[in-house]
């Protein structure tokens, strides 16, 4: 065979083989296992049951070593007051660390707002925490990969690698991230990962006196939380951002932001 023919044939063979090979997909065993793990953590909040006592916030701060008086928190409770004229006022004083002890609505610089009882059409509380998104923008924007998503869906932060640029804080549409006052790195709710991976409930779930908060495994059909999410009408926050949040709400109002 001449050298020219050899090269020609080789080229034809390689391009032909290349086209057919491209139909095959190289599978990483780890990726296959991770794509459908046995656990996908999800959270269920029943806003009808929340009374705004703030036990969850306190329990969370103690469990996760966030200074109680620091004005940041992994979880918080919001109060919504919808007036008969359609106006909506909201507050969350200190993230509801001490619960809602006053009828006055904390408007920060604008002071305390008093709403007369007869003006109120409806009022309710909404607990908030990290949504452990399926498509987390915070993970996408981290320049060093210090924040990452575990196979079970929980988004974690590596405190030893975070450079503290704050891009993840900017990228989160839910405002759940902040700088840890002591560690000086990005911090967020991680569903008490150290507890749930040992079969315990999160600190906030355990502290809630009315079972307004529940955590469960979406992959387990017998899990009560999974059953509610599958069989009842639940809502999520800000799905317009395409984040696919995994904190589900029963009784979510359109006024909740």
């Amino acid at each position: 065979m001449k050298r020219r023919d050899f090269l020609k044939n080789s080229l034809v063979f390689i391009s032909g083989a290349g086209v057919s090979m491209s139909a095959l997909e190289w599978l990483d065993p780890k990726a296959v296992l991770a794509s459908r793990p046995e656990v996908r953590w999800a959270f269920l909040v029943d806003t009808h049951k929340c009374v705004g006592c703030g036990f969850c916030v306190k329990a969370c701060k103690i469990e996760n070593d966030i200074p109680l008086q620091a004005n940041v928190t992994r979880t918080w409770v919001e109060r919504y007051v919808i007036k008969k004229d359609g106006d909506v006022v909201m507050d969350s004083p200190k993230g509801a660390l001490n619960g809602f002890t006053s009828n006055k609505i904390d408007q920060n610089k604008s002071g305390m707002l008093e709403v007369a009882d007869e003006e109120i059409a409806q009022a309710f509380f909404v607990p908030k925490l990290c949504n452990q998104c399926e498509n987390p923008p915070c993970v996408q924007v981290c320049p060093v990969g210090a924040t990452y998503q575990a196979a079970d869906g929980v988004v974690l932060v590596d405190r030893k690698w975070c450079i503290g640029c704050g891009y993840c804080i900017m990228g989160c549409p839910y405002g759940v991230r902040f700088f840890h006052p002591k560690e000086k790195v990005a911090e967020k709710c991680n569903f008490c990962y150290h507890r749930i991976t040992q079969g315990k409930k999160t600190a906030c779930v355990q502290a809630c006196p009315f079972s307004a908060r529940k955590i469960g495994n979406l992959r387990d059909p017998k899990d009560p939380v999974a059953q509610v999410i599958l069989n009842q009408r639940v809502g999520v926050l800000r799905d317009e951002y395409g984040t696919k949040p995994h904190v589900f709400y029963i009784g979510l109002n359109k006024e909740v932001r």
Partner: protein
Amino acid sequence: MVESLAQMVVHGEAWTVKDLFVLPNEYVYWSIQIVLYPYMTGLVAGAFVLSSLYHVFGVEKLKEIARFALVFSFALLPVAMMPLMLHLQQPQRGINVMMTPHFTSAISAFGIVFMTYACIVGAEIWFVYRQFIVESIQRLENKADRGSIDSLLLLIYKLISLGARDLSEEALHADHKAVKFLAGLGIPVACFLHGYAGFIFGSVKANALWMTPLMPVIFICSAVVSGIALCIISYAVFMEIRKWAAKRNKNFLLPDRLVGTTDLSADHLRSVQTHEVKMTSKYLLIFMTLAITLELLDIIFRGYTAVKSWDILRDVIYEHDFTKIFIMQYGIGNVLPFLLLLIPGLTTRRACVACVLVLFGVFMMRWNVVIGGQAFSLSFAGFMHYHLPIIPHDMETFKEGLGGSLLVLSAPFIIFYFINMIFPAFLEDKSH
């Protein structure tokens, strides 16, 4: 007790005032240093584009300012990184961006783009100055009584010459070709460096004010505007100092004597200065028109489409930040200098006044984007007001306050002073 008090103040709390309903963790996390970051990278990119106008497109009119712009761009380069380092909560880990770049993040490319750009600018300067470096070595070596500064300079020149001391016709021609190539390559890289600074903001989907695909383009245009304006002012000011020195037969402050170019006369300098400033101003006008058009298009489009976030954005743009956007940025920073530059019979002084206003306008634009983007809550029901810390009471309020920002703003001039001793920016040369 002190420790527990210190723990209570979280990052951002010192300068953020919340109004109405703001989520508990929301603060103005990106403060003055992040305003300065795109401002400084913009100046780098702009100065480089100005120098490339001569080197690539052969705009002869810009010959004298081109060399200055190149050296000044090099002096600005390390400063573009300073605000980021001053802003990081863990600055000692900044290098992690290079070690484990996470490529889905816009910031992760910073290290790579920045280093590429630094290499291009460094290489271009080397080729532009190679002849001068070799000549300086020869001159200093032949000098009989070398002082300590001369000896130091000789050592530096010997090191940076990298042993390439060929001054033949072909070698110089090759230099010239290399400069042209690097300047051409530098334009897209400079635009990328800055366009991606815009992408860092434009891609944050959680922020209603930032999220627009126009952001990178707006950033590039305003970058070129600010870079040219700064070059005009600095050029005029340094030329003024040279004129002042030439009249008195003095040469301190400037390295001309050190490098041996002493052919100076005040009249000659004045004519060069006026010519360069006038010519550069024309290019400034072109880029200004482009920048203003895009910025207005963005606002008009937001108002016209009026999606969910428009209610709060309207409050921020037309009420809370009205003075900062329409009076300081567009009025004083755009319209006024535009008119000043358009009125016939442009003098150096008027051009400089216009350029100072332009620089102020671009700074306000960065401010209104970065701080304005954090002026409203994610709840769309509350506002955050930013108060720049003036008198620092700890490291944080110094770094992210007036002190830190003045440090960043003054750094390029200090660096330029030293770089200029090695690569004289005002060297009049026939070959390039």
